[in-house]
């Protein structure tokens, strides 16, 4: 449904999106994941023909965004970060206006407005001025606006941003229920959101695509492991990291030990274990009984990208991320 090849957007001073390629099948919900400023909005704007790409191609619903923008625009529904509402209009009136704008015929128009009002549960505010609506309602009117012409592709930019937890759940359910009829891309910087709503995930950061994978793959791997960071030092002088590693691997429930780095006499290990197996006590005991010092033991708090990278175990991407991380820490 969507094919993106080497898509790039450069501004005078920076590159917002850097050679991104991915493909999305019909009927999928795809999460576009990345920290703020990663280039999510820019990519979406290029897919909606709002911004022209500097280089590369994007084919949406069978049409190139540069060659045939009109055909693309007919087939997409777009909800920008702030819903594009006219406060002086009433909900129903606004939806009719958007319907006309999207080219619905008179006969279809009232039917579709009825339908989307029902679908997005905004029927009870149909006669209300949009300026009087709560944030949650506005977001739903925004969604209703996006699906009014029954588009093949739905592009939603942070559809749950700024909502309260109850509204977030409602919006997620709504988006999920739309998935059968539309191909959906939604952007977010919240990992659980992707886990709950999406089937496929595309991760970008600093304009670069880090990885794409299915969410079920990601979850399967995430379910299996828990990871702990251990810092071990010798009583007097050096310890042999290999010895520590073999000792740690012998602890029951540990699946993998990864020697991360050595700082002077201290050695940092990352230990993966099966979830819900309480290995921390055993780990501590093992280290102390072997006569080493245990300086630190903590669950490894990982950034969103690290979680994903560790889960997918993509070495090239890990390296890229490490390089990026070092660049950032400087």
């Amino acid at each position, binding site marked *: 449904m969507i094919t993106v090849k080497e898509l790039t957007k450069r501004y005078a001073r920076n590159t917002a999106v850097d050679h991104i390629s991915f493909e999305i099948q019909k009927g999928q919900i795809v999460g576009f994941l990345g920290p703020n400023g990663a280039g999510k909005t820019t990519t979406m*704007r290029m897919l*909606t*023909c*709002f*911004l*022209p790409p500097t280089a590369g191609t994007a084919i949406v619903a069978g049409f190139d965004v540069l060659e045939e923008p*009109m055909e693309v*625009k*007919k087939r*997409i529904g*777009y909800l*920008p*970060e*702030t819903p*594009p*509402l*006219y*406060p*002086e*209009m009433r909900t129903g009136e606004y939806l009719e*206006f*958007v319907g*006309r*704008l*999207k*080219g619905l015929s008179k006969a279809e128009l009232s039917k579709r407005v009825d339908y989307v009002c029902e679908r997005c549960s905004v029927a009870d505010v149909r006669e209300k001025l949009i300026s009087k609506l709560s944030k949650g309602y506005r977001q739903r009117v925004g969604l209703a*606006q996006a699906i009014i012409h029954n588009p093949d592709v739905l592009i939603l930019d942070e559809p749950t941003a700024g909502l309260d937890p109850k509204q977030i759940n409602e919006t997620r359910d709504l988006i999920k229920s739309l998935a059968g009829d539309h191909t959906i891309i939604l952007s977010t910087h919240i990992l659980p959101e992707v886990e709950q709503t999406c089937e496929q995930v595309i991760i970008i950061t600093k304009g670069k695509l880090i990885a794409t994978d299915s969410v079920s793959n990601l979850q399967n791997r995430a379910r299996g492991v828990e990871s702990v960071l251990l810092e071990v030092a010798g009583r007097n002088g050096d310890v042999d990291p290999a010895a520590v590693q073999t000792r740690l691997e012998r602890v029951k429930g540990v699946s993998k030990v990864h020697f991360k780095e050595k700082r002077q006499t201290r050695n940092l290990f990352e230990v993966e274990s099966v979830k819900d197996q309480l290995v921390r006590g055993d780990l501590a005991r093992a280290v102390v009984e072997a006569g080493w010092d245990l300086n630190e033991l903590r669950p490894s708090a990982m950034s969103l990208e690290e979680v994903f990278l560790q889960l997918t175990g993509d070495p090239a991407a890990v390296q890229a991320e490490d390089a990026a991380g070092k660049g950032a820490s400087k």
Partner: protein
Amino acid sequence: MRNVLTIWRKELRSYFVSPVAYLLLLMFALIFGFFFWNIVSYFVYEGMESQMRGEMFPMNVNERVVRPLLSNASVVGLFLIPLITMRLFAEEKRTGTIELLVTSPIRDGELILGKWLAALTLYGGLLLLTALNFVWVFKYGNPDWKPLAIGYLGLLLQAGAMLAIGMFISTLTKNQIIAGAATFGICLLLWVLGWASGFETATWASVLSYISVTTHIESFSKGVLDLKDAVYFVTLTFVGIFFTARSLESLRWRS
């Protein structure tokens, strides 16, 4: 065409749900009404005076009432145009609704035309209100209707040009006030440039006065349909609309 109509209807609606349209109608009606009263009273006074002096040649209503009224209306219009155009694009950019319009399957040209026509329609409404005053002139006097019609055509052409320019300025900013103030400045400039030819006879003065709106509205107010003045306004309109289109396009490359 359907899309133009959709945009036109939406724009007109938003003029009339906010106080803007009513305020403009009220202001224009009041100011024009005052001019009308003033000029007609003077006309009557002069008429009586010439009768007392025993002068019997008839006074021309078109010359003495219609013409000054129309040129006054033209100047008042210049002051109201920024209020009509300032929100056209600035507001869409501020609230983000421009993203909806631009990602919908309508052409930029249709969007621009719809907005421009809506603004022109509102201005036409203002003019229609002033036309009510002339009902009295027709009732008690015997003016020629053709120069009056040409005068109104001139006002409409002038408005079309200035509205297009105001619309262009509105695409440049997210801030209505800035768009309004800049448009107001340009309108004012286009009015006063005409004064240059008053005391100076050099070429630059005549060029400046050619640029001025008032120079070109003059003949219309007189009731003379001069092609060269009509061309001036139509050209200005096209320039305004053309620049609006280019600016809208560049919005996407820049933002």
